[in-house]
């Protein structure tokens, strides 16, 4: 017994074996295909960085990048503005009420993506409930163009991303010791001061984590922009799919994919740097 233990300790890869099947699987089905894709981006149609130059230099593709970053930014800001109060409520509401609010958030998060997007397609269309109600109320005379444009994409994406900002914010806010707020109050700070100088700075890690997560997810989102967006509002993920699927332009499509992947990985590295890998306490 003792000798096997000692021999085991000398072996530098002790305990590595069981990870092997999963590792091999991910190498074969994720790393290798991505590597092949990268090769195509620099070899098709000719060897070199031509595809990347075309993507970054052409005005049409510039428009796509602009759309993508605009939508991702707007969605991040709106989800933060709506999500922060909700996360805060989840901490301070009596637990009976908070549990219901939680259930609603989780239900929306786990409901099939297409089901939710379908709901918005129906709600936002020209003859949809929202336009009808607004017209019946006399607020507008013409139906608002809410779908097949960036407005539709932004509404749909905000809906989908909200839970992803509420949950990390809730984790941060619920870890803050209420005594700190009490101390600030006793020291004579007014509620507004306490919020801006104590609570908000203390919740910055959660804000950062949530915003980065939403921003990164929004950058690469495909389904919602494809269904709620229009022909003139193509986003990066759609561009990639179009190039590959309809135009069979693998070189350009792969290059666009790698631009997206690079931006994503850089943002993720910032996230890991700032927050850590999320080791459970």
């Amino acid at each position, binding site marked *: 017994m003792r000798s096997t233990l000692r021999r085991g300790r000398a072996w530098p890869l002790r*305990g590595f074996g069981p990870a092997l099947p999963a590792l091999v699987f991910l190498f074969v089905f*994720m790393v290798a295909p991505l590597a092949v894709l990268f090769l195509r981006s620099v070899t098709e149609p000719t060897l070199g960085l031509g595809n990347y130059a075309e993507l970054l230099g052409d005005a049409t593709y510039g428009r796509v990048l602009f759309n993508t970053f605009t939508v991702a930014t707007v969605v991040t800001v709106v989800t933060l503005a709506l999500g922060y109060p909700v996360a805060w409520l989840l901490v301070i509401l009596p637990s009976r009420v908070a549990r219901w609010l939680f259930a609603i958030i989780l239900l929306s998060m786990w409901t099939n993506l297409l089901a939710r997007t379908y709901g918005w397609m129906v709600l936002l269309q020209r003859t949809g409930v929202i336009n009808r109600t607004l017209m019946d109320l006399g607020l507008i005379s013409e139906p608002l163009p809410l779908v097949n444009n960036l407005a539709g994409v932004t509404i749909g994406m905000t809906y989908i991303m909200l839970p992803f900002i509420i949950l990390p914010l809730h984790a941060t806010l619920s870890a803050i010791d209420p005594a700190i707020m009490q101390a600030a109050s006793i020291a004579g700070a007014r509620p507004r001061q306490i919020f801006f100088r104590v609570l908000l700075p203390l919740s910055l890690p959660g804000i950062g984590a949530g915003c980065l997560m939403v921003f990164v997810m929004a950058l690469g989102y495909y389904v919602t922009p494809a269904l709620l967006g229009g022909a003139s509002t193509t986003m990066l993920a759609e561009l990639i799919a179009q190039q590959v699927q309809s135009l069979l332009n693998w070189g350009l499509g792969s290059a666009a994919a790698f631009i997206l992947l690079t931006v994503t990985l850089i943002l993720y590295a910032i996230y890991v740097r700032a927050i850590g*890998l999320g080791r459970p306490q």
Partner: protein
Amino acid sequence: MLLSLNRMGPGRYALYSIGVLVALFLLFPILFIALLSFGSSQWLQFPPPGWTLKWYRDFFDDPRWIAAILTSLKVGLCVMALSIALGLPAAFALVRGSFPGRVALRAFFTSPMIVPIVILAIALYAVFLRLGLNGTFIGFVAAHLILALPFSIICIVNALEGFDEAIEKAAIVCGASKLEAICRITLPSIRLGIFAGALFSFLISWDEVVLGIFMASPSLQTLPVKMWTTLRQDLSPVIAAASTLLIVVTMAVMALAAFIRRRSEP
């Protein structure tokens, strides 16, 4: 102070109203689809002129929708089993192993959560086209497994980190073999983590659409892919019926998870 409601002053009404609005915003499309699926209007008029089960009948009478459900179920169950089969040993290696690069390996195992799915989708599409795996059952399972694996690994790692290895060692000291100790002491203790991982893996596969869109052949489609292709043509109320069924499945799985969690709490 700011973390207690009754001492917050008038600001709390602003908080309340945002909370109610967001809750309604989150619930609205879900309730709306459910109501619409029983409405008699082909053009999705709301409020519906009458109530009907026609769309559900259309759904269940169409063999293509049934085939799609069965495909989704089969793929989901396979993904669930494989995700645990690969994830459980990997989690043991991450928690118990003492090899260099353990942290890096952990990051690598969660990386499928970070890579935008559309990139993974076209990368797999290209390779599967060459290998003849496009639109096959194995292709679907392999693709979904990439996305499911991080979830089972994370769930099991968390459970395993909360388990005191000394208990397993005690069993070995008492005469159990290593395998016996793991199967009869450790695995039962971390079973909630395994259940959670299995549940997540199934849901990931059940809901997955982007990988499916690229791979699907007309003969083999999962439910979300069938919904996608139908949605691309028109906003038929049959999709409302399909969506409502999916929502019911989600609620059932959530209730199951809550039930398991409640039972585990003393």
